[in-house]
């Protein structure tokens, strides 16, 4: 009898100190029955990739409100791949301009959520991508 749970790393890369959104999402994912590992503020891409590896997560959720997503996201994707975690899906929440959205998706980011995004959508998308 196996008992599989979706494991999600919720991380705040970079220097902005606004983690309210990340905590709201963490709580919503918890209430959806997922196991959420929360890392705290000001994580480097290396710290995030290392945590994702040790925790063997299915999903990494990044919260970036500093505008540095185009620098941070590619580095994190690269490190995940280098560690052999090619199956890990990456989601980003924050202030992301439309023109960056396409480029992030091209990089392999699974989902991007801006202000006003519903946690129900995030939960549904995570469940669908992890199952598929």
């Amino acid at each position, binding site marked *: *009898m*196996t*008992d*599989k*749970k979706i*494991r999600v790393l919720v991380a705040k890369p970079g220097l902005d100190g606004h983690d309210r959104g990340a905590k709201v999402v*963490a*709580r919503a*994912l*918890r*209430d*959806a*029955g*997922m*196991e*959420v*590992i*929360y*890392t*705290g503020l000001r*994580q480097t891409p*290396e*710290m995030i990739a*290392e*945590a994702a*590896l*040790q*925790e*063997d997560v299915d999903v990494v959720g990044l919260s970036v409100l500093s505008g540095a997503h185009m620098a941070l996201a590619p580095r994190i994707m690269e490190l995940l791949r280098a*560690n*052999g*975690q090619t199956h890990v899906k990456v989601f980003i929440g924050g202030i992301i301009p439309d023109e960056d959205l396409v480029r992030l998706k091209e990089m392999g980011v699974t989902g991007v959520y801006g202000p006003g995004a519903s946690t129900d959508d995030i939960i549904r998308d995570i469940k669908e991508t992890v199952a598929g």
Partner: protein
Amino acid sequence: MTTTQSILNGDRLALARLLTKIENNAPEGRDALIELFPHTGKAHLIGVTGAPGTGKSSLVNQLALHYRKTENKKIAILAVDPSSPFTGGAVLGDRVRMRDLSGDEKVFIRSMATRGSLGGLAQSTANMTQAFDAAGFDIVIIETVGAGQSEVDVAKLAHTTLVVEAPGLGDDIQAIKAGILEIADILVVNKGDRPGVENTEKALKSMLDLAHPTERIFRHHGSDMRITGQAQKASNSLMWIPPIKRTISTEGVGIAELVESITKHAEHLRISGDWAVRDRTRLQVELEALIQSSLMNHFREEVSEKKFNEVLEKIIQRNISPYEAVKMLMNGRLK
């Protein structure tokens, strides 16, 4: 290369994936544990327990940092947080206090949720420590959920159990209750810069002074599990009195002294023979738990769900008592 080989060679991704399989109770996890088991029995298992907010995670962070700086040992940390009783989800936040440890190849932190277990650990925690042990980690620190008064399972798993207290959490009547304080090999009074720290220490000290050297007997599955034999006789002459250590874990104060006590305790266990006794206790607990779950599986295979529900319905209607139901379902095979 097989999973087992990769893990023995120190492959961190293979280890992380195995831990997931063990946690999910997957057959591959069990198979790997069978192969890894001969490689276990070397690590020093340190349990850290105490009420929520006493600073367990920060203390674990400092302990691991100290070990890395002074002894170059490989450290694994298994941090347990509670699952929601309603949704089964969890927020695991112990890593937040352990950021100092990132970037160190010889430290491996794994968070886990209790998934419905009550004693302060999860069902698979013991098996996950075995995986770390086999993978060559010298020290495995097990941090329990924020524990109340009776989450004492960690003492059955760890060689050395630290109970973390902080000032202002209760009067001296708390100190004479049975339960968590009894399992301490070392008592830590953390947040030592807070007012009231002397009172907390005094209450703990008077509790220890009252404690007679007692045998360690665990109530297990309703029967006493007594730690006896040669080893117990030997250890009576070398009784370990739990020291009280004051720390300020956010600043690293008192950590060197605490580590010294942990080392002394490990030496005590080896000299007195208690190390082997605790090893035996741990494996006995594991074996009994496995027998219990395999009997349960066997029962589920033998008795159809339909039959089970019919009998349950009779109980609900008050036609039979649960005791009579057991007799019916067991068909007299078991007493």
